[in-house]
């Protein structure tokens, strides 16, 4: 317990568990184990839809950056997935969706780890600085950290929008069991150009600085030319199950023959049902089929 002596303020030792777990004596799984790679943060056993699962939060050290990660796991996970999220303001709007994708893995008897990119949400590091190779390096390190946490299970990658590019490039080096790309933005240059154009046209809000779009900095290192071709080439040579889950609208460019394309009726901008549940459902279904989950 911390800060219990009179006059003493918070001075939190590394490895402290969440207050609720510590106070109420909640039976936490792996209480003495490190959270992901380094031992800080909370660990609680939660219950959702009648099933119990472990939830942990903590840091993963990657080069100069300290990345925030969230873990959801069944009691004895049969397989795992690392969720690589989207970027910036758009990424924030998909944050809860990404959490639910990781939670969905735990519900299906697996384990999901969601990491935040440097400079995004709770992760430390420069927001505008990283280039694509650095993000791929991060993806590989998170995969390795997750594998150290649960070493005996197969680990897959799930990339969401921009994260799909990273997942496609990291899959072979990281020896991922399967790769699922959700509504991928395979051509990052086109994507960031579109963000900048939409921000310029948004006359109501305006834009505070050049190089910014929708109140966030557009990372110059990610929107470099040639990324689309590089990703297509990487996808074509992948020797593991690869699936792309996306809406029918907007239509996608042709994908290499080894990629299984799962199209969900509806549009990305006007999702049927008001959220992206169908995408999550299909993505988890693909991982279940290709990695042997329930």
């Amino acid at each position, binding site marked *: 317990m911390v800060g219990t002596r009179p006059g003493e303020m918070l001075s939190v030792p590394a490895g402290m568990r969440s207050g609720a777990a510590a106070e109420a004596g909640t039976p936490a799984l792996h209480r003495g184990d490190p959270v992901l790679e380094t031992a800080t943060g909370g660990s609680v056993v939660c219950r959702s839809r009648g099933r119990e699962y472990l939830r942990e939060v903590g840091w993963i050290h990657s080069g100069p950056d300290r990345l925030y990660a969230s873990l959801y796991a069944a009691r004895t996970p049969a397989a795992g997935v690392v969720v690589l999220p989207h970027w910036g303001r758009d990424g924030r709007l998909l*944050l809860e969706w990404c959490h639910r994708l990781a939670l969905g893995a735990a519900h299906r008897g697996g384990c999901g780890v969601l990491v935040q990119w440097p400079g995004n949400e709770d992760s430390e590091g420069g927001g505008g600085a990283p280039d694509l190779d650095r993000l791929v390096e991060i993806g590989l390190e998170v995969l390795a950290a997750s594998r150290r946490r649960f070493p005996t299970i197969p680990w897959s990658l799930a990339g969401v929008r921009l994260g799909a590019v990273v997942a496609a490039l990291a899959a072979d080096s990281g020896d991922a069991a399967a790769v699922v790309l959700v509504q991928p933005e395979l051509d990052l240059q086109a994507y960031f150009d579109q963000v900048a154009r939409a921000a310029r046209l948004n006359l109501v809000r305006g834009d505070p600085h050049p190089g910014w779009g929708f109140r966030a900095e557009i990372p110059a290192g990610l929107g470099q030319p040639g990324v689309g071709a590089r990703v297509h080439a990487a996808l074509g040579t992948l020797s593991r199950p690869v699936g792309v889950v996306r809406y029918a609208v907007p239509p996608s460019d042709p994908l290499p023959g080894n990629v299984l394309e799962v199209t969900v009726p509806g549009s990305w901008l006007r999702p049927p049902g*008001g959220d992206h549940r169908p995408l999550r459902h299909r993505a988890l279904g693909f991982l279940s089929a290709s990695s042997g989950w329930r």
Partner: protein
Amino acid sequence: MDILPVLIETSGGVVGAMVTSPSGPPRGAAVILPGALGSTRSGLNQVFARLASSLAAVGVSSLRLDYPGSGESHLCRMSSWEESTAETIEWFRRRCGERNPVLVAECAGLLPAYREVHAGRGVSGVGLFLIPEPPAPGPARRQRGWRARPLARWVWRLPRRLMFRVRYGPPDPRLVTIWPASAYRALGGSEAMLREIAARVPLWVLGAEADPVTAELRRLGDRLGPEADCELEVVGGTSTGGSSLPGAADVVRAVTRWVDRLLQPAAVAAAATVADGGRAEAVSGDRRRGLG
């Protein structure tokens, strides 16, 4: 400086929060309350994360939380936002030793800050920026029309929603208003809340020169009178938020300066007097009185 992510069990579910503590012994504590519309505990362009680091540099521990339904608290029931937020602040307060925390609120964070002060829980002071404008009530006939239209839309979409529920499970909570406009109306809008806060604890508001709300705040200051323990600090520009890096830097600098000043020994003594239930009668001499 140490940043510790924590998961806190509340009556509505698990709330995710970050505790930032200084490297030395802390001399004060702060709770950072984000705005409601899609804000997370790190804030737009990480303004709250920067603020927490800046506060730690002057020896202040801080807690920033994701509201129920958002970010790490996405599984916490949004309907229990009030209880869950209060329980999370209480969890932090119990670890603050003898001193009560300062509440720093952005935009709709005013509402939980007000609830804390109104309930008489220990609060050393309240700092606000990006004050929300109270929603103007529309005419009754128009309101009836606005209610009928969503109802018709709801009925029209019901079969499809049921089909989706059967196939894909319950819908995700919508990431929109955690604080409904009706709550503002019930409380009489921002002005009533600011009045009560200023009557109980030191209140500090950060405004932007070109922001129309700043002029409103000046007029409110005139109405409150000089005896209210409140002050308005105005910076240049159009907005005091994280929507640009200079705006975020302004917020971080100004809030840190205010918290640092509030925790000076003389100000702490004055705040203790206020927290005991009386109006502020003595504050440190360098502070301006009144929002104007």
